[in-house]
């Protein structure tokens, strides 16, 4: 039996390693964005790529998001596999027209003639004390646009595996990187190839019998913490990490909720018009006769993202999750 060197790595490092390995394996992979070259990105995810692959493979572009994504479309049309970095969630909005009118529908409008194998990396979500326009959860906009895959890792290993899968995908992928997990650490050996599962498979992060927490991205560790705390209250919570909103893994989600009979959806994005509404509807449609209580949502408030000094009140935390779990009509079902 051989032992492998396992060292702690951060999610940011795993993402960088995924980019590096993808670029080394496939000369058509190009990274472009603001400050991704010499600086290595404001979160240092692209650190070292320009030095290793040159500035035509990892390119500092002019500061214009529509231009970055629009030129990436042209590069993909010519057979390259661009990986675009949008510096922050709210800075990706100027690229919306390119994303919605072209990226999402090029395959469809050309009847398969022009597929766009491009990845749009977006550091997203709150919890890092970012000032205005640096903490948005924009996944609801993306998931409402057919033609895009919407993927978000919650663990160091998934950061690597899912980003590799996103870059390898022949469809455009919006890859949402939870900013506050960039510095999260896990024992991870980058030299052992991770099992790269296809995009679209949810995973049970913690098995439980009392109720299911359905979550993704930055809320996964919060839900795991809540599940640990819930044990003291006598609840054995299951935590499902969706890993992608599009494609949506109805099968894993429904199987879990049928087992537990109760579900809470947890995300940072606002509740009204947020992913939780869609998820709750899908669960209700598929698991109605197994449900002991309505599917509840714990989401960000329906407000513009608050100033950092108040964000802890906005973000779903352990107490708010436990409070929702407590409201799952235990008296009626048991």
């Amino acid at each position, binding site marked *: 039996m051989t032992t492998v060197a396992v060292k702690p790595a951060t999610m940011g490092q795993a993402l960088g390693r995924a980019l590096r390995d993808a670029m080394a394996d496939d000369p058509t992979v190009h990274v472009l964005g603001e400050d991704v070259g010499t600086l290595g990105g404001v979160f240092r995810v692209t650190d070292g790529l320009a030095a290793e692959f040159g500035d*035509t493979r990892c390119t500092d*572009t*002019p500061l*214009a998001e*529509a*231009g970055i*994504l*629009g*030129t*990436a*479309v*042209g*590069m*993909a*049309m*010519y*057979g*390259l596999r*661009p990986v675009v970095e949008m510096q922050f969630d709210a800075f990706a909005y*100027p690229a919306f*027209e*390119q994303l919605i*009118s*072209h990226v999402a529908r*090029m*395959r*469809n*409008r*050309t*009847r*398969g*003639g*022009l*597929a766009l194998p491009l990845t749009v990396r977006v550091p997203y979500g709150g919890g890092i004390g970012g000032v205005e326009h640096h903490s948005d959860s924009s996944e609801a906009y993306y998931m409402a646009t*057919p*033609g895009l*895959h919407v993927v978000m890792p919650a663990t160091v290993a998934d950061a690597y595996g899912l980003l590799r899968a996103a870059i390898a*995908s*022949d*469809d455009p992928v919006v890859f949402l990187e939870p900013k506050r997990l960039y510095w999260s650490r896990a024992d991870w050996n980058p030299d052992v190839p991770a099992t790269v599962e296809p995009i*679209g498979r949810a995973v049970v992060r913690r098995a439980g019998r009392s109720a299911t927490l359905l979550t993704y991205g930055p809320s996964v560790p919060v839900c795991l913490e809540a599940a640990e705390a819930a044990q003291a209250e006598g609840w054995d919570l299951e935590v499902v990490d969706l890993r992608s909103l*599009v*494609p*949506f893994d*109805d*099968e894993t989600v429904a199987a879990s909720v049928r087992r537990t009979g109760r579900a809470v959806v947890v995300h940072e994005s606002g509740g009204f018009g947020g992913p939780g509404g869609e998820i709750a509807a899908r669960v209700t449609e598929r698991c109605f006769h197994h449900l002991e209580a309505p599917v509840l949502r714990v989401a960000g408030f329906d407000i513009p993202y608050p100033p950092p000094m108040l964000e802890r009140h906005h973000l779903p935390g352990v107490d708010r999750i436990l409070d929702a779990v407590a409201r799952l009509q235990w008296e009626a079902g048991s």
Partner: protein
Amino acid sequence: MTVMEQRGAHQPAPPPAWQPRTDPAPLLPDAEPYRVLGTRAAGAVDKELLLRLHSELVRGRRYNTQATALTKQGRLAVYPSSTGQEASQIAAAFALREQDWLFPSYRDTLAAVVRGLDPVAALTLLRGDWHTGYDPREHRTAPLCTPLATQLPHAVGLAHAARLKGDDVVALALVGDGGTSEGDFHEALNFAAVWQAPVVFLVQNNGFAISVPLAKQTAAPSLAHKAVGYGMPGRLVDGNDAVAVLEVLSDAVRTARAGGGPTLVEAVTYRVEAHTNADDATRYRRDAEVDAWRDHDPIVLLERELTERGLLDEDRRNAVRASAETMAADLRDRMNEEPALDPMDLFTHVYAEQTTQLREQAARLRAELAAEDEAYGAGR
């Protein structure tokens, strides 16, 4: 001794004096649109080229009138005519080689057709059939683009990618005067110049963005002047002079091929028809204005030259006209055939692999279609 002087003694040397990064003079467009027809230079233009351009202009005009007629017969959902702009359309197609890419807007189907695209394939979007009726890679012609100027960054990216690969490919992107106000126009030109991408931007300034005249669109001296701000040359040309547009575009393509970077070309022309068949141009312009341009029509300009050089006799005219009529009749006949669309294709090509959700929705539609067939009989 002043405070400043005292401080200066201990300060490091000031940064070097500011210098312009590029000499703007060579980038500036001419004061007047460049012309060949009607000037002395026209006499030196190859006669075969003049005759080819003439034949394409007449066919192009006929294509425009036929397509407009098809809207009235319900065979096209909408047609944004390029009547009056045929010289720019044809020159755009002629300036490109086989391996080059064209990035047309919705008003540029003629350029795509002159490049060799089947007119029926070029018109599927405007017919209400699937959005792109041709394989863009096979024809090196991007899909017709409706959101204004958004295809310009694509042209830049494609040209940049080709250059990185070492391929001899130039991209030509078409946009209108209104499109130059869009952010994507700015971003595309900026990226193109910074990357020195082998791309040419052709602005067909036809005077109107639907109803809004150029004066409400920009305060720039000309649209070609905008190039200077990006550090690329701007060229101003008479868009109705097919020879002049072809010369200017060919120069720009040559420069791009040679690694000289992008060029912005403004072709001054006029939109003779309304924006589309759904528009009423009498609400915003006078007939007299339109009439004033008839004397400067691309066909009129070229026929004047051909007649002066004795190259256009009645036989020639008839032959060109007959060829245009044959093309129009063929287009009419083929557009009169009902296209066969399969509703189940709604779910293909959304993703490389159909999602579970789309498979479920496809099954629902299939059941609806089966129920319709049962109720009304199959093959209605």
